[in-house]
């Protein structure tokens, strides 16, 4: 998943970037509100982590602006002040959840995952489509209760497709959301991952190729 982190404290920003990368996300970081707004306008994100105390453009204004421009990705707000005025204003501006500093990284990851899931319309960390189930908390995939061994990239492809069901996802979109910007954009890599993934999910075939457009997760085929 592609995550935007807007945090002015460099150390914390670095830590967030590392932690999120380690758990398989693609991360863009911005130092202030204006940069955050630029990134938010320019790229498609799956979620954003926004500190409220930002220079140049405050966190609340940034969220407001993003929502006004119809950017709908879930936003997790970080607040150091921890007062309710800030939390409520943040949520009213269009944020989806809040976390008070200092926080545990694990807590942040859990909240972020919950937001990503929620954005896809799933309430629990366990996403099930017939015999296929994906546990977004544990990052595990099972077919008929049997654990399927997947590499991190294979898991991410499946998770992204399952979180965007009944919609055609292009190879470019997959690349954008699963890899760093500087990754060599070779659509063959995606094809290879999808191919391996399909083999591991046999007898199910939930990933359908839409010729010339991309892939679509299809629960009917999975059933």
């Amino acid at each position, binding site marked *: 998943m592609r995550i935007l982190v807007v945090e002015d*404290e460099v*150390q*914390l920003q670095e*830590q967030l970037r590392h*932690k999120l990368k380690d758990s398989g996300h693609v991360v863009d970081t911005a130092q202030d509100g204006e940069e955050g707004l630029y990134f938010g306008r320019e790229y498609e994100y799956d979620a954003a982590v926004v500190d409220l*105390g930002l220079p140049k453009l405050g966190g609340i204004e940034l969220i407001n602006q993003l929502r006004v421009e119809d950017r709908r990705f879930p936003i997790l707000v970080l607040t*150091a*002040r*921890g*007062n*309710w*005025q800030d*939390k*409520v204003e943040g*949520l*009213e501006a269009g*944020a*989806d*959840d*809040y976390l*008070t*500093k*200092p*926080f*545990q*990284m694990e807590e942040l990851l859990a909240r972020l995952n*919950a937001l990503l899931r*929620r954005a896809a319309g799933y*309430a*629990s960390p366990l996403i099930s489509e017939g015999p296929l189930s994906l546990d977004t908390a544990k990052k595990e995939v099972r077919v008929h209760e049997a654990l399927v061994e997947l590499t991190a990239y294979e898991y991410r492809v499946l998770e992204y497709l399952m979180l965007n069901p009944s919609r055609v996802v292009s190879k470019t979109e997959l690349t954008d959301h699963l890899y760093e910007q500087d990754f060599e954009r070779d659509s063959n890599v995606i094809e290879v991952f999808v191919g391996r993934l399909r083999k591991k999910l046999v007898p199910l075939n939930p990933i359908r190729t839409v010729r010339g457009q991309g892939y679509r997760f299809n629960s009917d085929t999975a059933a």
Partner: protein
Amino acid sequence: MKSGIQTRLLLITTLALGSFLTLTGLVLDRSFRLSVLSGAEEQLRLVIYSLMGAVQSDDAGFTLPDQMPEPRLGQPESGLYAWVNDAEGNIRWRSPSAVTGGVSFPEEGPRLHPGEFRFRAEPADGAGLIFLSYAVIWEDPEESLLTFRVGADRAPFHAAIQSFRRNLSIGLSAVTLLFVLAQYLAVRWGLRPLRTMAQEVREMEEGHRERLSEAYPLELTGLAENLDRFVAHEQRSRSRYRKAMDDLAHSLKTPLAVIRNALEQVPSKPRDLLAEQLDRMQTTVTHQLSRASVAGPLIVSRQIELRALIERLLRALETAYRDRGIRVELDVPASLGVRADERDLMEILGNLLENAFKYSRSRIRVSGSRGETLQIVVEDDGPGIAPDVREAVLNRGTRADEVESGQGIGLAVVAELVGLYKGRLRIGDSLLGGASLSLELP
């Protein structure tokens, strides 16, 4: 006892006016009395002259005609009497009016010298009469000292004086009353701006008004402006203080977050120790900062509509806890209001509601009512809080060295804030199955 300005002004003017008018009354009364008496004296003098003119003296002696020069002298007990005495005090003649009644009064005081008048308005023994006496040397038939004496009934003169007095006191009382009334109205009118100001200050206290109106008379504009400035200053310094607290929070907590995350790279043995100490620091900082950022009751605070505030917090919390599918029942009348700092109230209610969202399984109920005090109850269907730890939950972390690591200082902070507003926070059981937190504010 404190007396109002109005009472003081009225008291002073009434006293001053009262003594002035009493004095005026006394002077007028005295002047009138003197003028009545001198009129009486003049009348009596005329009677004496006419008597002297009527005397017929021959060898036989001293006689007066039967026909009196003043008719009343001829009528018995007419109220006007005359006598003529010789030097020895023997009565040589008396008017017919004085004969039948046998009216006779001795001349008082030292002997009169010839040509001397003596007027007595209140003779000691002269019951009901006033006298005028005149001594004269009468040469015919032989030279002798005669005293002419006229007495008149005092009653008519006194009646005139009494009637004047009555009229005077009625008139003066009416004037006094009128003046006091006018004074009362003037004072009320004059002090009306003060009453208006008191009313407006009360409205500010109750939160119905932001500042004083501007229509004050010259003498009060200074006071009104100072009052406005004072209120504005309180609000300004409060927001300055809050900003300082917010900055402090930001500059303390962000490094704490960085340290906490960096700990993961530290070998496990020092890490546990560091993490524990970090937890303590974090809890203390969080706790003390939330305590410090509470302003407490303002001198002049707005009336806050509770229902609107709770709804706002609930909307926010429902967004954050969307996954949990928690059903919230809100039973707070729209009319319920409370005078407090809005941000303080937000902290109190935000923490209570968040607590309920955290622990409830599926239901939360928020109810509010006002009896003698304002009561807000937040209930959930979570695990509840065991009776033996309730006290500890409310008092946790009130001293830095008591601070336990980790979560759950929210309710203790709330209890403290509520204490600042002289209210109470109590933990009980809810019919929903979980905890019931009832907040009571005066």
